[in-house]
């Protein structure tokens, strides 16, 4: 009987504690612009959320922690700390932190797509820049423009640019007996038509025949001529010179422009490249080239690889072949448009200690530290004043590589960006990804006009739905 009473009392206590826990006080995030002074003598914590882009590899984490230690040794009132979140979980974790009132003080590095996805969540840094007379003239123009919202809100300070160009396998060109691509950005003979010609010559089957040969076996290709598989639909389409550049809508975001003539031309070029000329891999072949890492260039599966500076890591010095970089070609309109990214660090509007976050952000992107940041994240520093030092670093990291290509490519970054915000951007990008997967996996050449007409209608439906409720 006594034992029974004890069990009853224990049950009641357990129930009561559960109810009290569930009914605990709610945390309210500070409103925008509100700063909270810490108790005297206590350091203000600035948590930097890493995971929306690069920055989660072990070597990067070590370098980030070293950077935080350097900051903390010189700042008595602010403590910097990096919060590393795996990329796959980063968006959910960030949203959970914001909705739970525990937003980090800084988030980055983020590309245009990610910062645009959450564009309503960031603090407008315009007032901070004005208040402190912060000089932004040293940043490359695109680095600032790419991270302004349509209504002019400045949502972050840029860390780096990631211009794109081509990486090419010198051994593959030597084996094919053809000249390397030009390194002259003004050479207008280096066109997409020329790229096709060259790519077909370096595409090799298992018998050593290239794609121009009548004996070429497209079922047994060992080296493809060209690949841009780390890019998405808008990456592929942007270089073709449509009026809206990398944006699949008009400037007012109300009309879909996926079936613009320039994009139709481009998508047809890619479809022909996969199914007719065979110098690009289809979806099945691509997944088989490097199943472990999905890096077809590094394993010699692709001779010409279009990518960005973020591809330039330490492992490039261990490739089993000689390589270099060169400008991407001129398009059919005689223009050079290279898709480029720009990474920023931003302050969530609902974060606490925003003034401390602003101080930490300025420190991270100042002349002294931006180079270190770009070594960690593989970017070209967004500041013009450190270009020479960065070039020296690049030359030391990659001896023999034509680093001038990196700096020249920075002048051709796409604005409107291929990652720029559009209404319901997640759904729109999924529709475009589906169109690309049709192109790459349906086993036959496509009529790009009908494919893009169908895709355009899907995107237009999304836009109509969005504007009906906004």
């Amino acid at each position: 009987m006594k034992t029974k009473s004890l069990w009853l009392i224990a049950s009641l206590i357990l129930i009561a504690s559960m109810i009290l826990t569930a009914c605990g006080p709610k945390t309210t995030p500070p409103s925008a612009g509100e700063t909270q002074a810490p108790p005297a003598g206590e350091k203000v914590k600035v948590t930097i959320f890493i995971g929306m882009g690069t920055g989660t590899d072990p070597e990067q984490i070590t370098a980030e922690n070293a950077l935080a230690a350097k900051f903390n040794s010189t700042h008595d009132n602010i403590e910097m700390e990096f919060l590393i979140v795996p990329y796959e979980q980063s968006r959910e974790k960030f949203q959970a932190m914001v909705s739970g009132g525990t937003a980090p003080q800084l988030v980055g590095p983020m590309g245009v797509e990610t910062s645009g996805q959450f564009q309503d969540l960031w603090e407008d840094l315009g007032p901070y820049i004005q208040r402190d007379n912060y000089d932004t003239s040293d940043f490359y123009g695109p680095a600032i423009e790419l991270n302004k919202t349509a209504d002019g809100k400045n949502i972050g300070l840029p860390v780096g640019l990631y211009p794109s160009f081509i990486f090419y396998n010198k051994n593959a060109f030597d084996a094919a007996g053809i000249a390397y691509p030009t390194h002259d950005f003004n050479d207008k003979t280096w066109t997409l038509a020329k790229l096709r010609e060259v790519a077909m010559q370096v595409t090799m089957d298992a018998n050593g025949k290239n794609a121009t040969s009548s004996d070429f076996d497209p079922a047994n290709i060992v080296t493809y001529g060209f690949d841009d598989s780390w890019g998405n639909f808008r990456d592929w389409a942007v270089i073709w010179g449509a009026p809206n550049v990398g944006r699949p809508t008009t400037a007012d975001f109300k009309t879909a422009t996926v079936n613009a003539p320039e994009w139709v031309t481009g998508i047809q070029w890619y479809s022909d490249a996969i199914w007719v000329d065979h110098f690009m891999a289809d979806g099945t072949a691509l997944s088989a080239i490097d199943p472990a890492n999905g890096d077809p260039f590094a394993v010699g599966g692709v001779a010409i690889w279009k990518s960005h500076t973020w591809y330039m890591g330490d492992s490039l010095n261990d490739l089993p072949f000689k390589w270099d970089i060169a400008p991407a070609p001129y398009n059919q309109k005689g223009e050079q448009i290279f898709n480029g990214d720009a990474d920023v660090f931003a302050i969530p509007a609902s974060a606490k200690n925003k003034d401390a976050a602003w101080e930490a952000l300025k420190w991270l992107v100042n002349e002294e530290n931006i180079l270190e940041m770009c070594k960690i994240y593989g970017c070209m520093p967004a500041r013009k004043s450190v270009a020479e030092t960065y070039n020296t670093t690049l030359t030391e990291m990659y001896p023999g590589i034509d680093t001038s290509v990196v700096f020249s490519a920075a002048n051709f970054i796409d604005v409107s960006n291929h990652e720029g915000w559009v209404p319901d951007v997640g759904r729109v990008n999924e529709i475009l990804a589906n169109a690309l997967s049709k192109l790459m996996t349906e086993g036959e050449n496509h009529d790009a006009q009908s494919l893009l007409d169908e895709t355009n209608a899907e995107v237009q439906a999304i836009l109509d739905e969005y504007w009906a409720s906004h």
Partner: protein
Amino acid sequence: MKNPRLRLSLRQKEALSGYLFISPWIVGFLIFTIGPMIASLYYSFTDYDIISPPRWNNFANYKKIFSGILPAILNQDSSRLGDPIFWQSLKVTLTYAVMALPLGLIFGFFLAVLLNQKVPGVNIWRTIYFLPSVIAGVAVALLWGRIFNPRVGILNPIIEAIFHVKGPGWLGDPHWAVPALVLMGLWGVGGGMIIYLAGLQGVPTDLYDAAKVDGANMFQRFWHVTLPMMTPVIFYNLVLGMIGTFQYFTEVYVLTSGGSGGLGGPVRSTLFYNLYLYENAFRYNQMGYAATMAWILFVIVLVLTLLVFRSSEYWVFYEGQLKGKD
């Protein structure tokens, strides 16, 4: 002096004690299951992106899903549907269920019958066939992703060596992606097999003796004794299997993240219902719409389960029970 009106009877006291003992579970169930279910039902009638408060939109989410069905059917044009991708995800899930469920039941039962034989080392074989079912879904997906790789995986060379035909693209081929997942699922039938095995060992041996005396051969004993006596276990596995196939997520998420076509595979060929729900919730920040999908899935699975339960009176026989009677 005790107030006589507050005195509880012995029966009431015992009932109160019982409820108090199970009250932690009841409270937990209310707070962590019923509460969130009610909240998600509310969210299904709202536009809710987690960051901003939910905004009531009447039945807009449900209208979006169910609008345009008739024009789409009459015109054979899926673009008329309010959300063609929803119907694609349902189609992929149903296709998988229709393939995986019967095959899983049959294969598991077949294995259990084999492993019910009294042969030396049968316990080792039982362990071998059971082991794959205890491996975590992520590990299974990574392993099979490699096996299915058309160039370096082991499956296509085996197909080419035995059948002298080129193996398909498996996960990279929209026509073979779902069959690939079915094949992967068959590798893990050990869990169901163990339950069948337990059921087989519960079949009274005197039934087999009686059948032998009546001159029944092996097949007849299987058909007239084993199968009817196993129908409760088959029923159990069918219900659980059906619920499991409609909740399929982990393996396909791991296999299609980052692949051609993104989440959902090439041309949305592996865009399962739960995967599309996940995309709406966490990629498109449309938690309200995701909640709507969750409730529709609940209704679908509930209806199907009730149909299976209803049908069970015609084909499930419990020991000692006459057909159609308790």
